[in-house]
């Protein structure tokens, strides 16, 4: 616990910063300071020796402060601040990036090579190859931003252009419509000129004058238009004059009067004829009644006769009643009499027999007579009622005849008044009306001809006026058309400015794209060179470290990749089988230990081939996830490296330590012995 922190302290002491701890917040790097230590101070002291010369290098920082005190104490001089930085560069000849790449095999370097996520792995390899600066330059080129800006400006420009184009389009539509209207009025497109409008206007005024003269109208004073703007007013005034003329000269009273007279006469004739028809129908019904029942005198006589006969029937009936009562009395008497003699002849009588006979005879005879008389009387009464009805109908028909005759007389009187001459017969009426109607027709025709002539004159003037109006509108619209661009001057100017800005941005984008392209090519070239130089060594390390049963070889390839307009290196780390000709991406098939071996193989190789070599190499927990077999292989490589460089290994892996010790590698062991508020205590074992 605290191994990485201790190594980080070395890095911070040398360079004042920490390459991998990018998540540190703020510029003060207070996370480096032990918060529990008295005084809140971080203080790291290193002793650096090349065998003959020793330097004491120290850096101090107080919590909350950005500034650090950097000091190098050499054999003959002490260096501070910038001077100390310069001295360190003289000693090391490396920057922090080179240091990380070639000297400090950081856990993060290894982790970066193992991740599956391509972009992170590419970044890790770029860092190892020292290409992250180029990568940062490429990424900082704002091509995308420029493209977005160009897009925004193009959109704004298009919006402004649409505004102008929309107005032009609308104006063109209006103009086309007006030109078509002018064409419909017989004005060819090329002749729609102000001169033509003036010429037609003069002609209109002349026509109006002759109209006034011909029909004795008040002459109108109308000024001719002298420019387009006056056409409207000319048109308005002229229309008003035409309306006034029409009202005064084309009075419709006369034609209305004629038509009314015609209609009245036709009405009189029609009513008279209808009256005659009704009269004829009435007479026909009268004649039918006379034919069937006779004249009214004859019917009256028939009625008198019927009355007499009815009266006679009633008398006879009364007489029967008297006889009947006598018989009844006699029968009553006989019913009371018993064995008496006849009161008339004195003979003895059989009252019962007589009674039966009498009853029989008397009742039969009387009943028969009564029935006969009643039937006759009823028949007479029915005939009387019928004749009464006929008399009523006949009376109504005669009354109707009188009324029809009266109506006919009234119509003739009315016609006399209308025609102004006496009319006493059908013939008179028919002749007089025909004659009058003929006169009226002639007058109406004359009027219609005159009206048509006047209307044609007005129509011609109106048509000419319409032509003048349309010419005026076309010319005004053409004028509008010409003015549109000046009305939109601000927009036009803005469009020009936008176009210029867009052109500049596009040129800049092209130039930056070239830079990015070249930077990309350089990145790929450098990475390819680096891989080319170290490939054999990487493969050798891989074979020794990993000793994979199937995949005996390892290769790294690099190719350019376009990421949103930026060219970046894209690496692939693949293991292959030289015997079976198969290959695989290590990140997808290898175990954590195998991948760690691959990463260590690459890192060790790079520390050898990179041009900057220091006499020491710092390793941070190199045996992570390695089994014993891989640790043995690692130990062999470490033994080999230890012949060239001093190795500083931070580890808690006792197995690795024993392997290193058993490989006769001279080892000095330092360990964390205790922790207190001042931090860990490290002592030599």
């Amino acid at each position: 616990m605290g191994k990485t922190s201790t190594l980080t302290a070395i890095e911070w002491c040398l360079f004042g910063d920490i390459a991998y701890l990018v998540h540190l917040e703020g510029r003060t790097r207070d996370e480096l300071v032990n918060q529990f230590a008295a005084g809140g101070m971080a203080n790291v002291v290193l002793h650096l020796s090349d065998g003959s010369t020793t330097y004491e290098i120290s850096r101090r920082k107080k919590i909350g402060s950005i500034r650090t005190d950097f000091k190098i104490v050499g054999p003959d001089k002490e260096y501070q601040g910038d001077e100390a930085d310069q001295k360190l560069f003289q000693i090391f000849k490396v920057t922090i990036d080179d240091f990380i790449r070639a000297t400090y095999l950081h856990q993060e370097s290894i982790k970066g090579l193992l991740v599956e996520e391509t972009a992170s792995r590419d970044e890790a390899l770029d860092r190892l190859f020292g290409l992250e600066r180029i990568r940062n330059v490429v990424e900082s080129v704002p091509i995308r931003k420029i493209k977005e800006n160009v897009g925004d400006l193009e959109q704004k420009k298009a919006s402004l252009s649409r505004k102008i184009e929309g107005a032009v389009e609308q104006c063109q539509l209006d103009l086309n419509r007006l030109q078509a209207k002018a064409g419909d009025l017989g004005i060819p497109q090329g002749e729609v000129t102000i001169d033509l409008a003036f010429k037609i206007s003069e002609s209109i005024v002349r026509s109006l004058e002759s109209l006034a003269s011909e029909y004795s109208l008040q002459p109108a004073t109308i000024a001719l238009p002298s420019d387009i703007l006056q056409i409207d007013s000319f048109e308005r005034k002229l229309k008003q004059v035409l309306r006034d003329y029409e009202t005064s000269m084309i009075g419709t009273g006369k034609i209305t009067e004629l038509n009314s007279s015609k209609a009245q006469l036709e009405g009189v004739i029609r009513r008279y004829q209808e009256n005659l028809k009704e009269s004829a129908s009435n007479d026909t019904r009268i004649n039918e009644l006379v034919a069937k029942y006779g004249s009214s005198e004859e019917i009256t006589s028939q009625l008198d006769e019927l009355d007499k006969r009815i009266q006679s029937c009633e008398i006879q009936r009364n007489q029967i009643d008297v006889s009947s009562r006598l018989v009844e009395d006699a029968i009553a008497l006989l019913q009371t009499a018993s064995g008496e003699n006849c009161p008339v002849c004195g003979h003895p009588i059989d009252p019962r027999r007589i009674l039966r006979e009498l009853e029989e005879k008397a009742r039969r005879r009387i009943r028969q007579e009564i029935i006969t008389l009643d039937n006759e009387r009823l028949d007479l009464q029915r005939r009387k009622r019928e004749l009464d009805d006929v008399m009523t109908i006949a009376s109504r028909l005669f009354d109707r005849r009188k009324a029809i005759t009266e109506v006919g007389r009234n119509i003739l009187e009315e016609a006399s008044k209308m025609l102004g001459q006496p009319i006493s017969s059908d013939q008179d009426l028919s002749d007089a009306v025909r004659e009058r109607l003929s006169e009226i027709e002639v007058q109406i025709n004359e009027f219609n001809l005159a009206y048509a002539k006047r209307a044609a004159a007005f129509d011609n003037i109106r048509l000419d006026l319409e032509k003048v109006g349309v010419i005026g509108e076309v010319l005004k619209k053409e004028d509008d058309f010409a003015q549109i661009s000046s009305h939109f001057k601000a927009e036009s100017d803005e469009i020009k400015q936008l176009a210029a800005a867009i052109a500049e941005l596009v040129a800049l984008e092209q130039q930056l794209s070239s830079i990015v392209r070249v930077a990309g090519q350089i990145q790929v070239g450098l990475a390819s060179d680096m891989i080319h130089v170290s490939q054999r060594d990487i493969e050798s390390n891989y074979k020794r470290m990993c000793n994979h049963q199937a995949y005996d070889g390892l290769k790294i390839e690099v190719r350019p990749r376009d990421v949103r307009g930026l060219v970046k290196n894209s690496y692939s780390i693949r293991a292959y089988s030289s015997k079976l000709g198969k290959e695989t991406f290590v990140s997808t098939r290898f175990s954590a230990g195998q991948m760690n071996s691959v990463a260590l193989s690459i890192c060790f190789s790079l520390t050898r081939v990179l041009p900057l070599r220091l006499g020491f190499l710092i390793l941070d927990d190199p045996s992570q996830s390695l089994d014993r077999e891989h640790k043995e292989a690692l130990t062999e490589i470490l033994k080999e490296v230890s012949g060239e460089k001093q190795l500083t290994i931070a580890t808690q892996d006792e197995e690795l330590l024993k392997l290193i010790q058993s490989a006769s590698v001279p080892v000095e062991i330092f360990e964390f012995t205790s922790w207190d508020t001042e931090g860990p205590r490290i002592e030599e074992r």
Partner: protein
Amino acid sequence: MLEHAYLRAWAEVNDLAKALDSSEFGRVCQCLLALGFKEIGYRVSHFQYVGRPDFIIERSNEGYSVEVKAPLGNKVIIKPEDLLGIEGLGHNPIVAALTYPELATRWLIIAAARLTPRKYSKSELTRFSNSIIEKEVSNAFGKVLVKFKERAVTRTSILRELLED
């Protein structure tokens, strides 16, 4: 001649016409016209999208009940209820008709008494318009358009709120 302010108004109204459907366009124009009247000192005492009058405006001792007509075509239909709905309210009844798509886009302000229910062409209506109020409110309308057009397109309800401010 084509007035600059009216052509500018055309460009703004044209944007509205492209962005909104016809009924929404009518409502927005109604609201912008009311804001135009407000701009020149009228008080909008009544405003509604549905029913008649569309709005009532008052200034000093003059007041108008307004029926707004903003169809996208060249014709304006005046219905009997349009005229009846603005009469008898104690204000001068007027019909406001927008001349768009004519390039000289402005509001024609017409006394209701001069109109009968029928279909009019917009150019025909120009001769009935009160040129003084027409000019005054149309110029104000142009300013209101520039000020509020974007908001009118994205959030029409905000115009109504502006009327109530």
